[in-house]
């Protein structure tokens, strides 16, 4: 049961959130994207063992989406940043 630091509400139990999976997936231009690019966007994931940039939604709280960088093995939370921001450098 992780303690997730919502950028708005502060530390809350993970059960209040839903995880939206990998972050920073760019939706390609549907007019020009190839089938492969579209499949890549829809389905292909890094799914890394280690640091993962991901999206979370505070469903039972402020109902805001935000970004989080978390270690998928230790569950250490390394960074939390706005949904409009790109991944912080240091956390690679």
């Amino acid at each position, binding site marked *: 049961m992780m303690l997730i630091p919502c950028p708005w509400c502060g530390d809350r139990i993970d059960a209040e959130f839903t995880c939206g999976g990998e972050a920073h997936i760019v939706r390609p231009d549907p007019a020009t994207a190839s*089938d492969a690019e579209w499949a890549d966007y*829809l389905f292909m*994931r*890094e*799914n890394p*063992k280690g640091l993962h940039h991901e999206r979370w939604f505070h469903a039972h709280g402020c109902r805001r989406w935000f970004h989080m960088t978390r270690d*998928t*093995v230790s569950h250490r939370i390394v960074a939390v940043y706005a949904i409009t921001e790109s991944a912080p450098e240091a956390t690679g």
Partner: protein
Amino acid sequence: MKYSLWNLLRQAPRGHRDWPQAWRNPEPKESYDVIIIGAGGHGLATAYYLAKEHGITRTAVLEKGWLGGGNTGRNTTIVRSNYLWDESAHLYEHSLKLFETLSQDLNFNVMFSPRGVINLAHNEHDLKELRRRGHACRLNGIDYEMVTPREIKEIAPIINVSRSIRYPVLGGAMQRRAGNARHDAVAWGLARRADEYGVDIIQNCEVTGIDIRDGRVTGVQTTRGPIRADRIGAVPAGHASVIASMAGLRLPVESHTLQAMVTEPVKPVLDTVIMSNTVHVYISQSDKGELVLGAGIDGYNSYGQKGGINVIEHQLEGLCELYPIVSRLKIMRVWGGIVDIAPDASPIISKTPVEGFYINCGWGTGGFKATPGSGWVFAHTIAQDRPHRLNEAFNLGRFESGLLIDEHGAAAVAH
């Protein structure tokens, strides 16, 4: 030495001194014809059928931990074949058939026990889904029958079929040929047989890199040094993405923790397997007496074999609803496995853009039942460099073309 009652009797007075090793601990050779990554049930079955069906025995199965220690060793052992779509039904049915004679085939009792699996319906929609699946199964030659709450109560007297619970049991579907098998025995039996064929099962040997030249695999890097082979079959379950990334590929899977648990052992109270999607719990009783319980995945990517207690709580709330006598039984142990979930809840058994590199993954919460079948078709795919009819549809290309095999209905709750 053959496993038999006769040999057990002969060994008894000798204190069982003469039983040989079930498998060797070979040192890795420099090269093999085929390397299988992952000594789970699927990897071992692949090696076994490569030898048995295709005469390929210069095979190494590389395992980063101990053989059978992945999801094969931590699943709730449900085996059934009543899937919705033809592609899945045929594949799982093939596997179920192999299970039916696996003990004899391997000369290792895997305790396949066709004690029946019931899927419960708790609302009209569930009933519709089960009926649809039932019609499909019948036409696919897979046994399947709808059962009424009364019949379910007769089969499993501990269930509560009262209409007054939150989600009453409105009916169910039963596959009588389905049931359980002993998870460890499946891995061990396959390992022993593959080893007999000369397959090298190399434990504590983690693959850390995949060597590719001109778009073809040439071997792997491991914690025990490089090993060469021009055909590599990866069967790493929860670690599929990790292996794929070594070959420069991304996969349409995400790794999640799936938990299971056992109660303290009690005398038999349940002789069948019962699953419920709506109430999110499934139950069976092992031969040792523990109730083996499972539910859904934790909702975020994880490579930790440990999940949250909230999932367990919710599952047990449902369990108490359906089986009120369990309330005073105690949970003895809870564990987790890392499952690789594909968007359509169907596996990927496929060639890849890298020549000689084959991938078998995406079994998610339900691949134990497919162990022999998956190995069988994957061996074929590797040996012939093309898929077998049974796994043709389970290719990577389907994500690009859009022909997914959506088994969420039949696979929703883990099993």
